[in-house]
């Protein structure tokens, strides 16, 4: 009951600053749309590039969005109250990551359908593309949140976060783009999707501890 109150708070705050939260989603759309303009707009070429382009754009968009995850809570002192609450901090942070994914990651997964069409990605493979992003973006959210917890106290943490976290996202990118790419040419996709699923479970179970520890360190000084 109390945990739902926290989710409700996050969703209500998200609704009141929806313009700010839309930024990563718009970023995703624009970056994806730039590729046909910069490359040769040949459908065959775009079709081959589509999985990689969509995945890289989604990866960057999610990481950019994570910067704001704890920022306002840090600035207005709410974060101190969370740390001082007798409720386990790990619970509080995983709920926060979940609601943040709900308002930034999920719209991105849905919009990827549109961007796939723009890049002439085969329609029969759309299900796999969405599935790979559906499994992959929460992992990216978790990794980004670990970075956000460590950079929350820094004034210029904005650029540091992607630099810290991007190397860690490589496995997710490889399996995610592989699933979408294999689906496009009709190859079996079970293996990369299983790997994404396993990494998702790993991220959800371990990230809360890392995020909570990061926040405690960030607020110690």
């Amino acid at each position, binding site marked *: 009951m*109390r945990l739902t*109150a*926290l989710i409700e*708070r996050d969703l*209500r*705050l998200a609704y*009141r*600053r929806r313009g700010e939260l839309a930024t990563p989603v718009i970023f995703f759309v624009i970056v994806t749309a730039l590729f046909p303009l910069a490359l040769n707009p040949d459908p065959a070429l775009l079709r081959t590039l589509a999985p990689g382009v969509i995945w890289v754009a989604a990866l960057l968009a999610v990481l950019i969005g994570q910067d704001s995850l704890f920022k*306002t809570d840090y*600035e*207005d*002192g*709410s974060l*101190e*109250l*969370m*740390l*001082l*609450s*007798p*409720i*386990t901090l790990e619970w*509080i942070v995983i709920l926060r990551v979940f609601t943040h994914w709900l308002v930034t990651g999920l719209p991105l997964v849905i919009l990827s359908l549109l961007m796939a069409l723009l890049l002439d990605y085969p329609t029969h493979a759309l299900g796999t593309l969405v599935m790979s992003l559906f499994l992959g973006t929460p992992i990216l959210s978790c990794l980004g949140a670990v970075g956000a917890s460590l950079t929350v106290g820094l004034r210029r943490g904005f650029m540091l976060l992607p630099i810290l976290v991007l190397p860690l996202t490589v496995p997710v990118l490889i399996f995610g783009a592989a699933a979408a790419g294999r689906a496009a040419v009709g190859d079996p996709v079970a293996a990369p999707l299983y790997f994404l699923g396993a990494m998702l479970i790993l991220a959800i179970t371990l990230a809360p501890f890392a995020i909570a520890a990061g926040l405690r360190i960030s*607020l*110690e*000084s």
Partner: protein
Amino acid sequence: MIDSMEQSDVLSVDNLSVWRGERCLCRNLSFRVSTGEALQVQGQNGAGKTTLIRVLTGLGRADEGDVRWRGESLRRNSEQYRASLSYLGHSNGVKLGLSPRENLAIASALLANPIANKVDVILDKVGLSTHADLPCGMLSMGQRRRTALARLLLADVRLWFLDEPLASLDIAGVTLLTDMLKAHLTSGGIVVFATHQSMDLAPFPVKSIMLGTSA
């Protein structure tokens, strides 16, 4: 006898040393505050009042020494310790996008024993009943501070840690805070606060420690 004293509501600090980088804020600081007592932390700007209060809440870390609550080191028993303290820091911990009422609902969700049905009474007490449903971003600094004060009344805890509680409060607000502190002390609470101004909490004893004199 001594054993039973240790079990009661006493906040004790033994040989606490806190460093900030190369600078020593306090060395071998020891004190005890027990139920019904207030402790004022004094010192110039930058003397380390905020840092000390954060160490006492467990947010900050001491370099040496120990903070004990009911005889137990807070390092070992931090969850129970957090359930028995309220903290009002420099920043209010108030969400500007939410109304005072919504802010209190969230604050009570973060408590060990939430008292949700008292919200209206508390808002009335801190003089925010007419503004209870406006976003805090539209309220003045003093009203935001009052929202933060309301949070203290929400929790049924023994220990209050207040960092510059008088900041942005008007005269009526200062009276409100003084009354709140006295009521808290009457009910057996403990208050640790940092201010530059002197606060009259008579008839309750106010201990005080001065930071930065030894440096």
